[in-house]
């Protein structure tokens, strides 16, 4: 049967040629082949769940970055760049780089020397079983739900962009992921994430190159954007003095303290989906270098995400509108800007590579979710709470089974979302509830030896509940946003920033108060887990250019310079 006939719909943004279909099919064949090839190297628990802890800094670093470089991320932030201008870059720079460097230099040594399998595993060592159980159950539950939401969203994108049938997209992608993760475990997921990294750059880099050529350079593009939108669209910081002087409706304090100090710290240092990649590093130097390498490349990602959005704003003949308007008018929405730019410059072959990059981004994101779920389920829920006497072989089989179950729950969630779109908003909101308080708990656990088990547990619980309460308050009474985000001019994105900031502070305050009221833990129980009680391992006697601190300084300087250039 002709594959094109099976998947083609009546209308789509781009039309694939036979050579494009060959490139897409080749990608699926390659990832399945990699899974089959790696099956023989996933026999023990360390192999299956931790990829044998033998990844080099480059592989772990690129995988760490790619786990966050999904297709929805690319299309969504390109759309945000069209809508809000260069301000969207904050999510790639201040919303990532300081947190990645903090993870590398401050937190990684504790994760690594504790030899934990997961972030909940660290909480068990530091705060005891209740904190681990709370964190593990919420993470496992939310991860598979998020995977399902992303699966549906991507299938919907494939329907709009390529005209593919939703059921076809969901089942082909989920079965492929289930096969290669079940066979190869985390190593298979990491291999495909690094492959995806190269495909995304190979498939997307032509857009900014040709776009800047067409626009006549960055200077001319800024003039075009100022004419079609506003001069504020090309300034990172200049318009952030007040909520009403920038397209995003946000204040610099929200960006610096909410996004930079809490949300990004929470995501990049405690979300197990990304941290798991670093835990697979082969030694302490690789574990520290991996996030620094990831940070270096993260600073470049705006070239293939933000710049296409800005080019769309300056060059596309049609005006893009919000999704809700596009649905009614049958026009193009902000989120269509990346596929539109792809179709603008890419002929047969290049178009297939661009589409493959989007599919690869989606599948590796799903594989990341599933492999993280599998590890947390097996090591932090099943083994401590259900069966603690199984053999290593038994837990590997449990991991393989959990992979299949995780994929099936994701598929079920995708169909649930298909029936009721509002579920998607709830699930995405739920995920954000846990991140900021979890960062408070983990960072206090690592840096303050007086923090107790009860303090950690109650801080995490109260921080999470405060986040849920603020979200529900604004949901019931939208005018409450002025209190949560401190201004009547604040817009929806500002709510996320301030909600994270307050829930983090609640977590820290409760942890401190409960800890001070309780009995301190003996120092001997904190060795290897807390600053002051831990001998930080040396990266060895290596030249300056091989030291993590040296490269972190280089990345930090470039980060500052970029912010000044685009101020």
């Amino acid at each position, binding site marked *: 049967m002709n594959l094109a006939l099976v998947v083609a719909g009546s209308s789509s943004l781009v039309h694939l040629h036979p*050579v494009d279909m060959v*490139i897409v099919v080749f990608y699926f064949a390659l990832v399945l082949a*990699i899974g089959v090839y790696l099956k023989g190297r996933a026999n023990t628990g360390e192999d299956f769940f931790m990829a044998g802890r033998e990844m080099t800094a480059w592989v772990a670093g690129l995988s760490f970055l790619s786990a966050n470089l999904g297709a929805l991320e690319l299309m969504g932030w390109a759309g945000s760049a069209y809508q809000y201008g260069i301000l969207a870059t904050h999510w790639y720079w201040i919303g990532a780089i300081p947190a990645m460097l903090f993870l590398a230099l401050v937190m990684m040594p504790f994760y690594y020397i504790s030899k934990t399998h997961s972030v909940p595993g660290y909480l068990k060592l530091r705060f005891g079983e209740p904190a681990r159980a709370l964190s593990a159950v919420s993470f496992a539950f939310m991860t598979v739900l998020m995977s399902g939401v992303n699966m549906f969203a991507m299938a919907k994108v494939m329907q709009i962009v390529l005209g593919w049938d939703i059921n076809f997209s969901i089942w082909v992608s989920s079965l492929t992921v289930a096969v290669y993760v079940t066979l190869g475990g985390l190593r298979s997921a990491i291999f495909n994430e690094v492959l995806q990294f190269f495909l995304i750059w190979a498939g997307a880099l032509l857009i900014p190159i*040709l776009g800047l050529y067409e626009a006549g350079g960055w200077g001319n593009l800024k003039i075009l954007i100022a004419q079609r939108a506003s001069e504020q669209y090309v300034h990172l910081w200049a318009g952030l003095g007040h909520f009403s002087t920038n397209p995003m409706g946000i204040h610099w304090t929200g960006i610096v303290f909410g996004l930079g100090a809490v949300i990004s710290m929470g995501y990049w240092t405690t979300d197990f989906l990304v941290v798991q990649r670093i835990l697979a590093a082969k030694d302490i130097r690789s574990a520290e270098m991996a996030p620094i390498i990831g940070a270096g490349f993260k600073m470049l990602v705006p070239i293939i995400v933000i710049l296409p959005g800005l080019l769309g704003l300056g060059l596309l003949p049609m005006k893009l509108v919000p999704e809700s308007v596009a649905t009614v008018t049958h026009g193009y929405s902000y989120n269509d800007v990346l596929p539109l730019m792809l179709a603008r*410059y890419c002929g047969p072959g*290049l178009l297939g590579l661009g589409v493959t990059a989007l599919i690869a981004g989606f599948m590796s994101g799903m594989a990341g979710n599933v492999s993280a779920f599998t590890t947390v389920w097996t090591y932090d829920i099943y083994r401590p709470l259900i069966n603690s006497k199984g053999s290593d072989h038994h837990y590997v089989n449990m991991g393989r089974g959990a992979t299949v179950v995780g994929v099936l729950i994701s598929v079920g969630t995708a169909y649930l979302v298909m029936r009721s779109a509002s579920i998607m908003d709830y699930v995405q909101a739920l995920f954000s509830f846990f991140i900021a308080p979890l960062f408070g708990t983990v960072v206090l656990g690592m840096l303050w030896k007086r923090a107790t088990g009860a303090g950690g547990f109650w801080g995490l619980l109260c921080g999470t509940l405060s986040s849920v309460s603020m979200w529900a308050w604004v949901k019931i009474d939208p005018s409450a946003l002025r209190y949560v985000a401190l201004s009547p001019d604040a817009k929806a994105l500002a709510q996320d920033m301030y909600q994270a900031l307050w829930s983090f502070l609640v977590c820290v305050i409760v942890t401190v108060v409960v800890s001070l009221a309780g009995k301190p833990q003996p120092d001997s129980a904190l060795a290897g887990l807390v600053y002051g009680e831990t001998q930080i391992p040396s990266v060895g006697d290596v030249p300056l250019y091989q030291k993590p601190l040296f490269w972190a300084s280089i990345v930090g300087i470039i980060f500052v310079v970029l912010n000044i250039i685009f101020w």
Partner: protein
Amino acid sequence: MATPGRSASIWFFIGISLLINGVLIFGAGLYEYAYPPAPELQVVLFRLHSSVWWGGLLTLLGGFYTWHYAPSRARD
């Protein structure tokens, strides 16, 4: 992550991917160069023939990675 004698490096698989994709894109670009589509079907900046040079670059990069990280070389 080269593991000589045990399994192929991840960079080898990336080389294979870039090489095959590069050859396909280069071939498609050459075909369009020889048989240009009607002007209304051409992409913007068609005259630059980006498929040819981008496909060629991917082929070279993929070819180098495939050769350099080939399992047979790693075991030598």
